């Protein structure tokens, strides 16, 4: 099995086996555009994301003089009233419990008060409720957004300087944007709650997808460094070869990155239900997979497409064509 995979790598490396990432760019772009459009439309049609208590604020219950400080009791009590909620239960100073949930209606508040009183074995007047504001306020979001914009601009500059072409920067940023939008779209379509953990996940995905693209683009840079003097392959073919040559790396890396995340998502969060673990691992799971695919199917073909019209490269492509018609009689190359 491993040998098979090694042979797969060898064939990709020499070009014997090749997947046409660049040549079929139109199909991939079309798929990407459709997915992005769906991901943008979904939250618009649904009226926004399902934002968690940290963004919107919510209801807070305080239960005093409880018999037991078990957090499970409070969680179960909340689930009896609202099935889908992800409450946060904490014990405050001795025998007081604090339970936070999404904003509840008046009826739900009354029901939950009763349910909590029963669960903790106290009378109803020992349960008080109030509203709490968001912990992740507008100021936090604003600063995070500023940070994000500054980062993307600096990253674009860094890549443009390193690769010595702004077109690679643009293609990488486009790939990252596609990844981000689709990841966010999954949260909107699945109606998963967006919590600070999910936002942290989005940010991780952001840096992961750019990182992944830089690794593949560095191979493209190596392969195309001598393009002007080479007549073996056209520019687009070189780009495609580079993507194929790094394909084993892409598969291995995404597997290694996704395995722990999948374990947390399916084993950890699967057993526990909603919570920090699920929000974070879901964003990462989707983001790592989409990010790896976006590098292969969006960023690399886009880069080849951005440079298709350059006069130096069209001249080179003609030379390749000429050489090929000359050697056609010779045995086919590998």
């Amino acid at each position, binding site marked *: 099995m491993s040998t098979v995979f090694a042979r797969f790598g060898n064939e990709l490396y020499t070009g014997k086996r090749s997947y046409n990432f660049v040549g079929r760019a139109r199909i991939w772009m079309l798929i990407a555009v459709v997915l992005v459009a769906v991901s943008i439309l979904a939250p618009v049609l649904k009226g926004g994301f399902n934002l968690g208590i940290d963004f919107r604020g919510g209801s807070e219950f305080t239960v005093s003089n409880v018999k037991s*400080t078990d957090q499970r009791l409070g969680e179960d009590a909340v689930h009896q009233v609202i099935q889908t909620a992800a409450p946060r239960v904490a014990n405050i100073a001795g025998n007081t419990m604090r339970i936070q949930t999404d904003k509840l209606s008046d009826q739900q508040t009354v029901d939950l008060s009763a349910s909590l009183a029963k669960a903790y074995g106290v009378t109803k007047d020992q349960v008080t409720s109030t509203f709490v504001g968001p912990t992740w306020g507008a100021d936090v979001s604003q600063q995070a957004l500023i940070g994000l914009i500054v980062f993307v601009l600096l990253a674009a500059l860094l890549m443009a300087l390193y690769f010595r072409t702004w077109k690679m920067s643009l293609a990488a940023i486009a790939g990252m944007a596609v990844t981000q939008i689709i990841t966010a779209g999954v949260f909107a379509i699945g109606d998963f709650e967006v919590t600070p953990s999910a936002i942290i996940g989005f940010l991780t995905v952001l840096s992961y997808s750019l990182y992944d693209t830089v690794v593949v683009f560095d191979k493209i840079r190596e392969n195309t460094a001598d393009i002007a003097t080479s007549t073996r392959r056209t520019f687009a073919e070189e780009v495609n*070869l580079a993507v194929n040559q790094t394909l084993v790396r892409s598969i*291995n*890396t995404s597997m*290694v990155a996704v395995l722990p*995340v999948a374990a947390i998502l399916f084993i950890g969060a699967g057993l526990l239900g909603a919570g920090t673990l699920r929000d974070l691992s879901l964003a990462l799971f989707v983001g790592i997979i989409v990010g790896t695919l976006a590098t292969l199917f969006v960023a690399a073909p886009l880069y080849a497409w951005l440079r298709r019209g350059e006069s130096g490269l069209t001249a080179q492509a003609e030379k390749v064509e000429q050489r090929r018609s000359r050697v056609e009689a010779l045995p086919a190359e590998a």
Partner: protein
Amino acid sequence: MAKTGPTRVARRTLLWLVALTLAMTAVVAGGALSGASGWTPKLALDLEGGTQMILAPRVEGSGSVNADQLNQAVEIIRQRVDGSGVSEAEITTQGGRNVVVAMPGTPSQETRNLIQASADMNFRPVITAGAGTPVPEAQRTPADKLPKPTTPKNASDTAWLTADVVKEFEALDCSTLDKGGAKRSDPTKPLVTCQPAADGQPAIKYVLGPVEVKGQDIVTSTYGLQQGRQGTVTNEWAVNIQFNGDGTKIFKDVTQRLNNFYVQSGGDSGNNPQAQFAIVLDDKVLSAPRALAVITDGRPQITGNFTEASAKTLSDQLRYGALPISFEIQSSESISATLGGEQLQMGLVAGLIGLLLVVVYSLFQYRALGFVTVFSLVVAGILTYLAITLLGWAQNYRLSLAGVAGLIVAIGQTADSFIVYFERIRDELREGRGLVAAVENGWRRAKRTVLASKAVNLLAAVVLYFVAVGNVRGFAFTLGLTAIADLLVVFLFTHPTLLLLARTRFFGEGHRFSGLDPRTLGAIPLYRGAGRVRTAEDLQPAGAVSGRKSGARNEAERRMTIAERRLAEREAAQGAETAGKDDK
């Protein structure tokens, strides 16, 4: 001698890594044994619990606060709490009246005072200014040239620049100045501080004279488009201040003095910093405009380079400086972890299962080489653990569940450095190189890729750390930490280990289970025994053989010239010799 180089360098590098690890362990052990810190990382609010304080904001002069002021209060508190380290405090409002702060651990009296203090705004004249970076050691004023103490005549007098003040000013680095905090400097003494970098303007540092006008003397502040001479509206945003009677009187004297500096230095074209006054909030400069005129009516207008947003911000800050909000701690109680213990437990169990899968996958993919991956990850894990423990001690860095998950995710990115490296080595083997040469060439190429891609991660970490607040800042910290740990491990462990392994028989001869078996990799070895050397026929027929040598070659196209082949053979032979020597 020259050829024993790589092995010796590799061994020395590994020793450095051991030394680094031991040094970090020693510091952690020292802290733990002296009782100053623990053996384990500090945990954040969600995992460990902490203290919850309910604060009632009080605005001087009026009983209650409105929603706007409450939001401002949250912002002030967040700045102050974040200024005391990366602690991921939770700050929220309750019932539209109170601010609730939950922070891990038990806050010290110092922290409590800091939170309770009201915002401190005042106006100070600028004595001197400079770029926000420290003056290089060599260019600093020598001890004998430092000014001798004299008695200052007024708040702008350069006599305030005593030897201590000059030294502090030259050494000050604006980028390390606390983000938040509410330090209270002595209003009768000069202040050395910064205007933090913002809106694309770099940070500037100042020496400021004693306080002349207090924030309480501001009646109100507004912002709007500047009015031209004939009452026409221009496109320039401006911030307007209105002082009370006291403020008007003092401000008139101040602007008289400052405007003199302005006129003497040549008006608009001059750049004497003494013509400026600084608006200072919690010991940081918000803005330092020049006094273009003597303000007699107590209604100065600040103009120049404002956008609508920045004008609004300054105007808001001036207003809440004028209405100092103080906080009364109504209750302070311990609070348990907000996440049940089972969340952490399940997270760790799932993480371990994930790690196990990674081990299985690496061994399956890379055979014996997979162990190098696994050991590298273990080394990275140890370094990260020590770093987090140390930072918990030094920087109050606390690990939240999101942080734990972030670390587990970092496995993927760390392993990627090795994967990139291994794949490059395999590519070199496919070219028909010996393992020793393949490792060296592969490393040269992988190094570039690894550095370039980690630079992206580090950039994300640094930018988010300096710009963002709250949770995002903690995340950025973890991201940066793992990126650095990764680089350390690749350079100090993985590469030297491979250099040594390449000289062993098991890997060097490409054992079936080494993961670097040239046969499996489809390479045709250069030397095939019985005096046969790879010939041109063994390779696929190709076009012209090119002797072109370039840094980034197109290896699929590349074919070896005779000279290169001989060189490679010589290298391989010498490599084997060296290995033999070292084994003794």
